[in-house]
């Protein structure tokens, strides 16, 4: 990889070499730059320099929350006498999201290299990749890649003679959306049901086995090698201020070419959908765009030119989330989609907070009724109130996610709901 003269022309970081065949093999990955800069990092960098570069890069967490990665790392207390753990969140379960899967199945060594660098900066001896249980193929790819990395002394004791030792273990989940929430992930990794913990204490201080723990998304960790090789300033010039770098967008729904596309931050929804995804299946403008996974508020055709940045999506009234864009054209039955998402959240609620456990069930039952043409005018008010009373009143954000589609439907398409009420169905 050479440093490009004009970073604005660089379109890909995580996917830079992803189309090369057999990249899962260590020899092929190495021929294409994997681990090339690692010896320099282990020899010439220290924790302070790595964290500074990541801070300078402006990298924000790619899993959904968008928290600055360097800042998160700087919260980890040093010399506590306890081990520090690094957990990679590969529990990709937010409806619409499927990007981390491609990194793991096509370029597993990119993730491993990012984890070694992050582990070195945080003085980690044991790191884990928590991968969703359904990703059996990806688990096997990661296992094989890790095995090869061990054989080449890229993992294990005294990595490349640096004196730094780190072990990496892949850990399969077993089908629970909530385990993508970092404290639920930690509970799950301790062999328990994935029920989110109260914060504080934050995992950086008290996480896995009550030790300092950093949880980072796959895409976040896969960005680290490029940042350290080319420098934080290089990364900071891509995209827009406060929204730097590239982002992988998983585009699904009513587009002609669904898939993962890594583009510089700031690319508009229209450019992504028209130029990369081959446009819509029907019509010329989308009816609804869910920009950051099913838990983010809906955008409409009027937002088609909004820039895909953390700030741009907030300005448009939603969130960038994990970059999972679900596009719906004029043929979409919004009530059916909302009912289906309500079912999802009711199924995935862990049940420990009453507003979420009860509220998600209410939303689902009422949406079932509305879809079946048996809803009443007062149901719309109950949906609104129930959703509003769930958001922000629970330990984690699942309830907020459950409320988002309901509130969006009622706000933007009340007439579609009304037309399905029993009073108006012949």
């Amino acid at each position, binding site marked *: 990889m050479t440093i490009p003269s004009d970073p604005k022309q660089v379109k890909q970081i995580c996917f830079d070499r992803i189309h090369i065949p057999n990249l899962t093999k260590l020899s092929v990955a190495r021929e294409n730059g994997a681990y090339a800069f690692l010896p320099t990092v282990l020899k010439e960098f220290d924790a302070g320099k790595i964290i500074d570069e990541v801070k300078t890069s402006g990298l924000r967490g790619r899993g959904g929350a968008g928290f600055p990665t360097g800042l998160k790392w700087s919260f980890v207390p040093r010399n506590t006498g306890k*081990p520090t753990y690094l957990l990679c969140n590969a529990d*990709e*379960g*937010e*409806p*619409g*999201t*499927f990007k981390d*899967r491609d990194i793991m199945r096509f370029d597993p060594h990119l993730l491993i290299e990012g984890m070694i660098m992050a582990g070195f900066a945080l003085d980690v001896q*044991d790191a884990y990749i928590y991968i*969703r*249980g*359904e*990703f*059996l*193929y990806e688990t096997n790819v990661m296992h094989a890649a890790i095995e090869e990395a061990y054989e080449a002394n890229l993992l294990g004791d005294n990595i490349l003679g640096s004196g730094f030792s780190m*072990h990496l*273990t892949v*850990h*399969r*989940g*077993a*089908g*629970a*959306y909530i385990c993508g929430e970092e404290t639920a992930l930690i509970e*799950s*990794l*301790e*062999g*328990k*049901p*994935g029920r989110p913990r109260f914060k504080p204490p934050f995992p950086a201080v008290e996480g*896995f*086995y009550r*030790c300092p723990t950093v949880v980072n998304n796959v895409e976040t960790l896969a960005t680290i090698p490029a940042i350290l090789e080319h420098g934080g300033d290089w990364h900071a010039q891509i995209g827009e201020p406060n929204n730097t770098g590239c982002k992988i967008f*998983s*585009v*699904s*729904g*009513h587009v002609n070419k*669904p*898939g*993962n596309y890594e583009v510089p931050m700031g690319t508009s929804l229209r450019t992504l959908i028209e130029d990369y995804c081959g446009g819509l299946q029907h019509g010329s403008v989308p009816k609804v765009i*869910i920009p950051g996974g*099913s838990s983010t508020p809906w955008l409409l055709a009027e937002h088609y030119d909004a820039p895909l940045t953390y700030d741009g999506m907030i300005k448009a009234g939603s969130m960038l989330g994990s970059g*999972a864009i*679900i596009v*719906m054209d004029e043929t*979409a039955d919004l009530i*059916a*989609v909302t009912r*289906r*998402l309500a079912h*999802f959240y009711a*199924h*995935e609620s*862990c049940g420990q907070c009453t507003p979420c456990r009860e509220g998600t069930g209410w939303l689902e039952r009422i949406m079932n009724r509305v879809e079946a043409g048996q809803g009443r005018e007062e149901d719309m008010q109950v949906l609104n109130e129930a959703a509003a009373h769930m958001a922000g009143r629970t330990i984690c954000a699942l309830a907020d996610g459950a409320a988002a589609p309901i509130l969006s439907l009622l706000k933007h398409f009340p007439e579609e709901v009304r037309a399905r009420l029993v009073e108006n169905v012949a």
Partner: protein
Amino acid sequence: MSALEQPQFSEARKAEIARLVTRYPGAQSALLPVLHMAQEDFGYLSMETQKLVAETLGVRLMAVREVVTFYTMFREQPTGQYLLEVCTNAGCMLNGADELVAHMCDALGIKVGETTPDGMFTVTEVECAGACGGAPVVQVNNVYHEKATPASMDELIAKARSEGGAA
């Protein structure tokens, strides 16, 4: 239950589990992976199998029960030889998942959640499989089939039948 019916891990499995446990600060961390192994070995997680896992890891049976009942991939009942899990969440729904499920159920003469009388096929609906770019997605014994169609599922079912059910 007779001694013959008691599930037992093979020696190779026991060694694998012993190695795995060393990778965690506490043995209970190995619970999910070991339950996956047990399900692979015994087909589903009977109460006897759950007791075996509890004993193997030295954790309380209740800790195992909590986990088995919390996570949807752990099954306490046997399924057909071919477990067909259709994602019907938003991305797949927008690309015909509901019609696909209806077609598969019709073709097999069962309802969602049921197993064919010959014990060959079980059809279930699952939550987002994380492969929405290939919607609709059907997992067949944990192998992803993307852009599935009624025709591709008919073909898969016919092939499974002609192979006499060798999964």
